[in-house]
């Protein structure tokens, strides 16, 4: 079958690509567009390593078809920082040593940004449940949760920890 033409916006850039109808958005990002920051950990929506934002909504890109990107606004981990300026969540992940191997990190960065966009003042429990769709096997989540809570405080303009 002929490939489908898709016109979309990825990380602020108008992007067009051709994909097979059965190709997932994750495969399109990684293999067609060349954005490999989104990771495949399971391809079944269980690990969250491929998390992206679609019109601001948190989605596992392995559960979305590439053709569904038509007309949408997509943000991947590569689009979270503004140029050289890291997003507070990224900066706090570094400061809190909230990553070890770093493979799940892109998904957590995207999911945490989505959380703070929706709820700027989450409780620890709210953060833990929001991020329950992202698996990390290295950290035990402790430093990840601290980084997210600290980023939230900084984004609210609170400096005290």
């Amino acid at each position, binding site marked *: 079958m002929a490939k489908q033409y898709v016109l979309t916006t990825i990380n602020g850039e108008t992007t067009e690509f051709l994909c*097979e109808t*059965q190709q997932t958005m994750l*495969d399109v990002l*990684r*293999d067609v567009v*060349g*954005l*490999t*920051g*989104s*990771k*495949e*950990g*399971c*391809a*079944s929506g*269980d*690990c969250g*390593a491929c998390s992206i934002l679609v019109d601001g909504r948190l989605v596992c890109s392995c559960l979305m078809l590439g053709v569904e990107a038509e007309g949408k606004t997509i943000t*991947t*981990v*590569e689009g*979270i*920082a503004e140029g050289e300026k*890291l997003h507070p969540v*990224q900066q706090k*992940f*570094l*400061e*809190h*040593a909230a*990553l*070890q*191997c*770093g*493979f*799940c*990190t*892109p998904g957590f*960065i995207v999911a945490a940004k989505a959380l703070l966009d929706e709820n700027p003042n989450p409780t620890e*429990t709210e*953060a*833990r*449940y929001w*991020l*329950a*769709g*992202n*698996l*990390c*096997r*290295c*950290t*035990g*989540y*402790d*430093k*990840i*949760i*601290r980084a997210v809570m600290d980023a939230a405080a900084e984004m609210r303009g609170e400096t005290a920890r």
Partner: protein
Amino acid sequence: MNYIDSGLKVVGTRPIRPDGVDKVTGRAVFAADTRVAGMLWGKILRSPHAHARIVKIDTSKAEALPGVKSVCTAADFPDIPSEEAFVGEGPMNFRDLSLNIMARGKALYEGHAVAAVAATTPAIAGEALGLIDVQYEVLPFVIDVEDAMKDGAPILHDDMFTQGADPKPTKPSNIAKVVKFKKGDANAGFKDAEVIVEGRYTTKPVHQGYIEPHACLASYNADGQVNIHASSQGHFMIRAYTAKLLGIDMASIRVNPAEIGGGFGGKTLIYLEPVAVVLSRKAGKPVKIQMTREEVFRGSGPTSGAAIEVKIGAKKDGTIVAAQQVLKFQAGAFPGSPIGPGCMCGFALYDIPNVDVLGYDVVSNRPKVAAYRAPGAPITSFAVESLLDELADKLGIDPLALREKNAAKNDTKTHYGPTHQNIGFEAVLAATRSHPHWKTPVKPGQGRGLACGFWFNIGGESTATVHVNEDGSVTVATGSPDIGGSRASMGMMVAEVLGVDISRVRTTVADTASIGFTHLTGGSRVTFATGMAATQAAEKVRDDLKKRAAQIWEIPVDAVEWKDGKAYPAGSNAGAFEPLDLEAIALKAARTGGPINAEVSVNAQGAGAGFGAHICDVSVDKETGHVTIERYTAVQDVGKAIHPSYVEGQIQGGAAQGIGWALNEEYIYNDKGQLENPGFLDYRCPVASDVPMIEAVLVEVPNPRHPFGVRGVGEVPIVPPMAAIANAIRDAAGVRMPDLPMSPPRLRAALDQAG
């Protein structure tokens, strides 16, 4: 060797890791992220049967499919002889490894690779797998370890006769090996005991659960040279195994270490690389293979499940006088479970005069086990530390006091031979006793458990280079893949020795052609052994810098002092010249002997053993059997924490894996010997909402055999959690859970039985 523990400026601080920005922005390149022109996609066909003779494989239809460029089976691999080697964290037989990556004659577990294809797209490769016709003769299978030991059990290997059995066996068996350790006279000890406790425990195999599936990209060139890009715990290991399995000399294989997305021991073996090389050779193009998550579960190694019997005898005052243990470990389809450490680690924590341990390494129709964090120790300690809780209860002694009374000290001789030296177990127990968690009364409705753990830690071969660049900045390269922040700790040790700011030091992981041999990242050895190489290389560079300064000033080298990153004239020349920093010396490098660098290779000995104690508070929902971890504290002797955040991270991560092992994780097989939960939805690793904050308490008892007092920290934290949680459940709900996982259905059944 004397360690440095005063005047430290970099060691012990918490700088941002040098590879951090790449990893929070999605730029870090993991194994599956690399693409090259003309690359093919490889996929592997796996056996649907737990045990089957492979009668015939017809690949002609797959080969005829447009887009398919090569197909391979075991016939394309050298049939290599049995050869024992000790590599990584345990024994290895290269024939077994070869048979594990591609079945020859028999498929020994569901998920065993039987053929592979390379095609122009993943979809075509997938379609081609369906066109390979494999005729199987299905054989009886055995999954459980004790079933596999029975007379009349289906035999996996006709040529396997139990090693270490007396008398020498005449019939093949699934028991690969029997191991025994003895100290004193256990029978006499038990006669002397006033209280004896006994228990039987079982654990399930659990997967390391790294989030990055195995992946590699291999290119076999027309001249026989091979390039491999892969993530692993050791690119030198990939080179050695691929060379051995394919009969290629090592110099012709170059392995580039990709970032590794978790390993925990599971990436100390190879599965894909030789297959990709063979497919590439046959196709004349580079081939990339990445496992699906399902393949990771069906085809790569978990750690052993086990059955363990323990008996402990003590005096009324709590002094343990005798201990006995029988351990049966599943090895998977090939020998090599961590039965050795399993036999050693349970009683290694205690000073017991009479010990008798018997262990069995048993094959069955499951994936071959791979190392998993302190291999063997969590299993044996679940049993021993659970039974110690029973003993404390029976004696009416506080469980911490029981451990304090019997704790191994310096000069305690272990039952497996070595005598403990420079250990910090007593310091760990003291820190546990004085911790607020231990001192705070248990909340109503909750229960508290305590358990301890031990791991040897290892040293071994490592190489590091330190370069002072033309502008005085410093580049460090090592051969150790960075799993959890080792670039940071290596750079910090070098910065400390040279007296420069960490921002002037950058660390990389060099490929197999660019640095000397370096053993796996595993066994908690990198900060110790590779850190030793990096420190010594930095010391050589510092000596060289002093020599260069002496040359520039035309004074004797012993009249030069190195302080805070600068050479100072000392003694009678003090104050005679302006101090020279790295930049100033580097500027004149060409005139003082050329480039400034040093490479040091070590075979590090004296890795200090590690001890930990975990305190856990739980509540039990008696209606559902669900356990909530309310509070968790992990105390550990860490030697010297180079970067405390990453040390804490190791402890928190290990504890969380232990929580999963304790409460949820297991392999579920159906009656055909097929795995029913090969995915993250049904194989339930802990998620963020399953765990509380995990407080890591760093007790620093320096290891005098390392220049900064380092001992390994990554293994110990997974050892205590299972028993700590079991003991807490016992305290909260009054039931002893001897079988893992302590999942809601099991706990409900136990509560029902207890009435």
